[in-house]
């Protein structure tokens, strides 16, 4: 399971948090954890929304 993380300053969402180990994954195409996240999303899953 993942949760989107909002930039505290710009409010942009550029990071997703992997809840199993509290790892912060940037939206970087070459990052293998990000690739795994995209695969998870493509399988029909939806991350938790960012905190307001």
């Amino acid at each position: 399971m993942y949760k989107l993380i909002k930039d505290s300053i710009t409010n942009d969402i550029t990071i997703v948090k992997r809840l199993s180990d509290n790892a912060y994954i940037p939206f970087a195409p070459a990052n293998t954890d990000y690739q795994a996240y995209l695969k998870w999303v493509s399988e029909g899953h939806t991350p938790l929304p960012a905190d307001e």
Partner: protein
Amino acid sequence: MTLIVDGTSGVTFNDSSLQGAAASPYVLKNRIINGDMRIDQRYAGTATASTINGYTIDRWVVNQNASTGKLIAQQNQGSVTPPAGFTNYLGVTSQSAYTVGSTDWYSFQYNIEGYNVADLAYGTANAKTCTLSFWVRSSLTGTFAGTFGNSASTRAYPFTYTISAANTWEQKTITVYGDTSGSWNTTNGVGLYLMLSLGMGSTYTTGTANNSWATSTTISIPSGGTSVVGTNGATFYITGVQLEQNTSATPFERRMITNEIQLCQRYYEKCGWDQNSVPGSTSGYTGSIVSNFMGTASTAFEGINWMVIKRTAPTLTFYGSILGATETLGVVVDFNSGNSLGAASPLRIADCGYGHFNTTTSSSYGALYRVVASAEL
């Protein structure tokens, strides 16, 4: 020192290694980082849990993709004497006598970044021949299997080698002819991977060891290789792994420890622990990174630069050392009271560094934490 210079091979040194006219193997001779297994940032020489299915010592993966619990990996496992000239090796020990299923997949794997093999010109008519050399020691003897492949596993170079004597270091050499076909990453993805089988199911044993590249649809090694996971207590150790652009093996390239650590840190870096500490395993404040001193009830933003530029923007894992307790994943703590300040709040993660946004309470003074960055392939 003898040098032979000719128009075909360029410069030939007295150890038989070549400095080609176009390529320069003495600048980038060994494409394997941590081939002598000295660097172990994650585990600092301790045994990895049998549930490991990923990186062990720096840059080296132990795959247990079917079912974990079959192998334990460790730097200098068993404390045997390494081959002459080496101080470290990577070892695994089988935890059971396991018969691999058709889709089981146990192996050592090393992923070479595309930038570091781009000059080999794979996928073109100018593809270069390389030589793999490594030292291996096992409690088992017989034929063992391995392969090279591209990132999509659509190209495979299956090979075998023989371990003749049990519990004895033997050096093996594999010639790898350049692949003139296929699609090869030449930037920051996987350019070329090496896999040494520790027990592979039939799905992955369709390859033929005939010194050539072949089209594949998945990982492809020769059948009949010895299964390390098939024997309870079996050991398999390697070190001195070198892949060089050359038609024969030359002496292992020695690097300064600083250089080797920095090469590893492109892919994994721990900030706040010394090299002999395992992230998440210690307590107390020693070594922690301290953010800006903020005063009470305020916010601050700090930026941290990595010691080495990463392969890509890395995944970050934070640890907070609440006073007197084992480090806690994902939190930062106040450096005055040791109380938790809640979840870490990174932003702007990049290959050069990251930012962290801190909010303190009325009784705190600033956030304190350590962080691990992983940009592994």
